[in-house]
């Protein structure tokens, strides 16, 4: 089926000016690139915030006169203020988890790739798609604005637990800053809804002739499953945000119990419950991890499949595992609340469901490992990052056994063990998938190749840096070092942890510096990179079969016909090393 009638597609979209073509564009490719570049800018911003935090953690309350010039309020006197530290931490988490990683996979790569890879002319609802991006752009502006209002950005963390987040008097940043934070999250949710409905509909309804569900590229399966999780969980976050906002502005008490005394003043609220927020938040918050990691897994699987030059192992199994993860992700949220005051028997149930999710995750991991057996691995930059993804996701995932079991969570809850764990699983792994995707699809997106030598420098420093930073954090957490802390050296018992803590800071600087190599490579190659061949990786998926440059509407008079799954590499008895999906007949060798 095609979303758009085949005749006259070119005609319909001809003659628009610059604004309709590149700004308020209905073309999924432009929308994808808009998402991509916005998320990239947000990532740089969020990364800078984390560097400031690491500076404070490495040398608590040290004076940095130079930084005072750049940040006269937060670093007054050259020393970071505690409230500034906490606002950095809130905004780093919010920006990276939601405004970068949630946006870049389905919004960025999904938008660009879904119609191309399934042989469609565009998204099912192009106008909704454009709106989705512009609401996202607005939400980015609103969230950053929180830094510039009175009191600064909120200090309540990306989880925004009330009553801290519900009562302006509870701390600096809990005034207008927190309101803006909620509004930004609400806008993002609206944007995400418009996006994911579109991706799901497009994948289900706009596939070209012959593109059955079991012939979809693996990364499309990842994006499809991720979109379904988004659809089922983001509305709950929106609802929770609205309730929090009415608690703050209209005097309701959804999350505020009676009898609170803040600054020796009795708070005039009654009847709410703080744990209600935690249930609502984590009902979204944990699936959020899978909203990010499932498309990352899809991309890694897609790229591994391309560079092993043999048919990937476990295609149906992987698709099934993602669906299983999506289903299980909805019933594990309570593992964030083992020590929250939730009924301990509920903790027992959530511990079990949480551990169950390792079954599909482990099977996925083993599918990739088995796929490497007997392969002809091509160590191109995308493949290096995909292999790094496997290694890092494994390391991060294993930490989940400690945190998913209620008993061992007691000493580790809200320590740096958790910070290390989720950064490996849902920050570094997805980031490696993003880099793999950029190195892989850059020639399709921009018609040029990225520099391979710089890419490899980027890879080695990134993987070494990622492990040095986040594996070490696990040990800090075992030592008991608490997270959300402006200065861990306040506690005598954490003094001896300051050496590895400072090591983490040095490693984080190296990790960040290696991203500059990437940024240089990206922008330099954008203009100066060597021209890419039509199908530089010699792969089978449809996006490489589209004309170059790809017009609005993607295909010529007729969308391609699909004859096979995307992983016919090195098939025995076939002359070609690879057989693209739209190739009807294959040349067979004798015997």
């Amino acid at each position, binding site marked *: 089926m095609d979303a758009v009638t085949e005749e006259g597609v070119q005609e319909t979209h001809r003659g628009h000016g610059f604004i309709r073509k590149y700004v308020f564009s209905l073309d999924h490719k432009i929308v994808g690139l808009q998402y991509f570049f916005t998320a990239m800018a947000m990532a740089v911003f969020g990364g800078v915030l984390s560097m400031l935090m690491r500076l404070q953690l490495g040398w608590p309350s040290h004076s940095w006169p130079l930084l005072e010039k750049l940040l006269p309020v937060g670093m007054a006197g050259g020393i970071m203020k505690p409230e500034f530290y906490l606002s950095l931490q809130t905004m780093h988490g919010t920006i990276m988890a939601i405004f970068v990683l949630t946006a870049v996979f389905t919004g960025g790569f999904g938008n660009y790739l879904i119609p191309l890879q399934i042989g469609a002319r565009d998204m099912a609802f192009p106008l909704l798609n454009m709106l989705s991006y512009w609401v996202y752009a607005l939400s980015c502006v609103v969230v950053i604005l929180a830094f510039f209002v009175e009191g600064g950005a909120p200090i309540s963390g990306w989880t925004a637990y009330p009553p801290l987040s519900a009562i302006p008097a509870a701390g600096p940043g809990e005034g207008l800053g927190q309101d803006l934070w909620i509004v930004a999250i609400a806008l993002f949710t609206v944007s995400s809804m418009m996006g994911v409905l579109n991706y799901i509909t497009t994948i289900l309804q706009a596939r070209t002739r012959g593109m059955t569900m079991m012939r979809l590229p693996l990364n499309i399966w990842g994006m499809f499953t991720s979109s379904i999780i988004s659809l089922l969980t983001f509305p709950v976050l929106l609802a929770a945000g609205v309730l929090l906002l009415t608690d703050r502005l209209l005097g309701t008490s959804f999350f505020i119990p009676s009898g609170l005394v803040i600054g020796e003043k009795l708070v005039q609220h009654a009847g709410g419950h703080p744990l209600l927020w935690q249930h609502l938040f984590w009902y979204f918050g944990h699936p959020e991890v899978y909203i990010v990691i499932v498309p990352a897994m899809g991309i890694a699987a897609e790229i591994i499949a391309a560079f092993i030059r043999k048919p990937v192992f476990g295609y149906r199994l992987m698709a099934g595992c993602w669906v299983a993860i999506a289903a299980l992700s909805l019933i594990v949220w309570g593992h964030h609340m083992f020590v929250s005051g939730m009924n301990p028997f509920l903790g027992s149930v959530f511990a079990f469901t949480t551990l169950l999710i390792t079954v599909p995750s482990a099977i996925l991991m083993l599918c990739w490992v088995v796929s490497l057996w007997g392969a*002809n691995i091509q*160590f191109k930059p995308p493949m290096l990052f995909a292999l790094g993804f496997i290694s890092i996701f*494994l*390391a991060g995932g294993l930490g989940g056994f400690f945190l998913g079991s209620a*008993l061992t969570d007691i000493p580790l809850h809200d320590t740096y063990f958790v910070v290390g764990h989720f950064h490996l699983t849902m920050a570094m792994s997805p980031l490696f998938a993003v880099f793999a995707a950029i190195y892989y699809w850059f020639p399709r997106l921009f018609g040029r190749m990225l520099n391979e030598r710089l890419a490899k420098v980027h890879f080695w420093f990134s993987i070494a840096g990622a492990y040095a930073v986040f594996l070490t954090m696990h040990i800090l957490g075992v030592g008991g070092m608490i997270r959300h802390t402006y200065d861990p050296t306040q506690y005598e018992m954490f003094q001896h942890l300051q050496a590895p803590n400072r090591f983490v800071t040095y490693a984080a600087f190296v990790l960040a510096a290696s991203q500059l190599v990437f940024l240089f490579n990206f922008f330099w190659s954008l203009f100066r990179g060597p021209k890419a061949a039509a199908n530089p990786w010699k792969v089978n998926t449809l996006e490489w079969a589209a004309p170059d440059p790809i017009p609005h509407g993607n295909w010529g008079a007729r969308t391609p016909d699909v004859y096979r799954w995307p992983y016919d590499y090195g098939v025995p008895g076939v002359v070609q090393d690879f057989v693209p999906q739209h190739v009807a007949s294959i040349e067979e060798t004798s015997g």
Partner: protein
Amino acid sequence: MKRSEGTALSVFLTVLVISSAWLFTQRYWWMPEVASVHGPAIDRVFSIVLVITGIMFVVLQLTLAVLVFKFGRNRDVQRRLWSRPRAEKWFAIVAGSVIFMVDVSVYSLGESEWLKAWKTAPADAALVEVTGEQFMWNFRYPGADGALGKTDPALTTSSNALGVDSRDPTSADDVLSTNQLHLVVGKPVRMRIRSKDVIHSFNLPHFRVKQDAVPGMAIEVWFIPTREGQFEIVCNQLCGLAHYRMKAFLTVESQESFSQWISQMTPGGK
């Protein structure tokens, strides 16, 4: 073409495995020395889970290392392990069962101890009320009558931090201590954990005790201290500007020194 990246990656993964093994077997940066009766059980489960996950980490990272070393630029592609429905099915069943068994063992190891921790405290357990507030800890002892006086948030003033209602006779012998908690070694204690304002978390790292203090709730946890000494009490839940220095101290001591300490305190619960 050269296969140097595969070799480099396998060397990297091997170094990773060795350094991780060192990091997680050294004991200098490790959990604070345990000081409660239930603590060793948590540490034991932690160690077993560490061994299980450690084996999986080493085996899988090294498998990856071997594969990238062996099959980089491999001319002789082996095509046996194909996406055949039958192979996939058996692979899923075997791999799924193995990991499921690991899950069940990790779960049951932790679960029995977890439920034990939530059993009712022994009848002779002492009661101490802990009330978190921005940014300090209030500890209230019930005195000889064993009952804590009523509180009313509306009565809260700077000299009556918990809003204790003096008209309630049970409050007369209550003792309030700020940021200093004293407990008797070997004696079970029920901590009734509350908060005046936002969510805090009552964390005693040496005792393997961690429980959020949620306004509107009174949550009880109990434990038995086993070691005399001075320990730090940590606020483990982001509670605002000065969260990082919301610190208190716990002294575990003999019954005699405890009695002496509490007798010096002013009764009235304020």
